[in-house]
């Protein structure tokens, strides 16, 4: 299978007048289509910086990053915006839904920026919201529903553009553990449908849902292993 993400010799240095801080140091890895990868690491390990670069929110100091066949490291702001719109679905720790805006409109937003006609947008947004179990909440305002529900809206928004990569940053960090399990169940469901997922987390319980776990420490990859438990489950799932 072809690589969705291909990162090689990636380095990120933050410079200020006083000092230079190396956040990422010579990172190389690739992720294939359909993978579910957890990137783990303690705070300050550089995992957030890595996520920003993979998410086309930030540019590396050196190295290359190819996303779905496109070199991302040299693009300008508007080109990056287009990449984020078409190829990446974001799921944030704080949900980041537009306040005072309906659930349906929130899911429609990235499609609006892509210039998809309104009828098509409504149809697709409704479908995805039904998929995450919120078909009965379409006209609720985003601030009138629970945290778990808000994150499900964010997932629907994340997959609305059918992106090459779904990028989740501590997706369960702000929600109760029971609802966190529901969120993870949805992640696995959409992963089984073929979506590639990269999830940043520091919680081993949550990372355990992924098929592959990359550990980052001090700006370097310290381990990159398949998750045996999930592989077994997957095999089990396939042989069923």
């Amino acid at each position, binding site marked *: 299978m072809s690589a969705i993400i291909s990162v090689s010799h990636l380095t990120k240095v933050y410079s200020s007048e006083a000092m230079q801080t190396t956040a990422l140091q010579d990172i190389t890895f690739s992720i294939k289509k359909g993978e579910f990868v957890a990137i783990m690491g303690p705070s300050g390990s550089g995992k957030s910086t890595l996520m*920003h670069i993979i*998410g086309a*929110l*930030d540019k590396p100091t050196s190295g290359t990053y190819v996303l779905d066949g496109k070199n991302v490291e040299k693009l300008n*702001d*508007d080109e990056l*915006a*287009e990449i*984020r*719109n*078409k190829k990446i679905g*974001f799921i*944030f720790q704080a949900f*980041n839904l*537009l*306040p*005072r805006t309906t659930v349906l409109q929130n899911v429609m*937003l*990235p499609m*609006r*920026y*892509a*210039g998809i006609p*309104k009828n098509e947008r409504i149809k697709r947004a409704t479908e995805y919201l039904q998929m995450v179990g919120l078909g009965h909440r379409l006209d609720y305002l985003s601030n009138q529903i629970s945290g778990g529900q808000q994150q499900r809206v964010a997932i629907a*928004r994340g997959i609305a*553009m059918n992106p090459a990569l779904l990028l989740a940053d501590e997706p369960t960090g702000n929600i109760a553990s029971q609802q966190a399990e529901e969120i993870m169940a949805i992640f696995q469901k959409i992963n089984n449908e073929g979506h590639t997922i990269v999830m940043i987390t520091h919680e081993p319980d949550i990372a355990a849902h992924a098929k592959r776990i990359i550990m980052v420490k001090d700006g370097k990859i310290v381990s990159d292993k398949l998750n045996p438990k999930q592989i077994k489950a997957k095999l089990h799932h396939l042989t069923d």
Partner: protein
Amino acid sequence: MEINELFLESLKTLTINKLRTGLAILGIVIGIGSVIALVSLGQATQQAIQNQIQSLGANLLTVSPGSTTTGAVRGAAGGGETLTNADATAIQTSPEVTTVKAVSPEVQSRSQVTAGRNNSNIQIIGATAAYAEVHKVELAEGTFITDADNTLMSKVVVIGPQVASDLFATTDPLGQSIRISGISFRVIGVTESKGGTGFLNQDNIAYIPLNTAQKEVFGQTYLNSISLEAASSEVMTQAENEVGYLLLARHKLSDPTQADFSIFSQQDIINTASATTGTFTTLLSGIAAISLLVGGIGIMNIMLVTVTERTREIGLRKALGAKKSIIITQFLYESIILTFAGGIVGIVLGVTASFLYSYFTQSIFVVSAVSVLLAFIVSAGIGVIFGWYPAHRAANLQPIEALRYE
């Protein structure tokens, strides 16, 4: 992305915080409102002055005696004794003057007039029959001075409506007698009211035959002015030249700069008056424009606060794929909607204010379409100019920084 969807979104955002939106547009409302009101007021004043000057006569030229030079001492303009009855007759009869329709030789002075126990200090004008035509004097009752009255030096007088009410109150003044400088005159007519105040007051005047005025009342042989009615407005300049050359020749002057008389057209007077009121209008509008500028700065301030408050929202929009142009458009729409709404309310208030002013002072109500149109354009323009910086600031936010912002 459809433009009107973005517009509706901006509109919705503004309705969320109604008090702030209201206060933000208040500055623009006051600015536009005062510009509209002051420009209207200025134009109304200008129109009023123009109307009054025009009511003095159409296509009017006035010949005034120039300053007299005695050795090195130059007298005041208009104080000379250089215009004579013969000059007036010459203008009327000369074959070289082809564009003058009527000639009205005039003398004037202020004098005390009495009727019974009432008295008043008014302008006395010695006039011929031509005066009524040249100065468009209409009679409310009776007749104006005739050529016969002039030739016979009759002691007759035509009075203005204010003189009539001052001296005779409710009694019909026709046939009554009034005393001017101790000489008794019989009232033969009362003029229609023309209005006007101060030196333009056309109602506080009495007209007596020119000859009577010169020989019996004022004791002077010269004229204070000769008023001319040109044949049409197009030949005003030609008439001015013809009369000018005739008088230069009659006064045996070869150099026009040495002229001992001067000729004003009514247009000159209107222009002078308009220039004066125009200066005031400009000055007042300038002050109003400053308040508009302050209003614009208020809009910019509010937009900057809005951008800061919505940093996370902007970051999210950018993360989801909003390009710079979309963010700029969104915030520009907001500022334009603010200033445009302020402009509309301001126009309504300004027009209402000038209407109320004209209603209560019974003056002319003028609102020019140009100033309203300009107000629209200016208010939208302020939205663009003062919204530009905040919108660009929003568009240039880096998504990671913006998403992290608390």
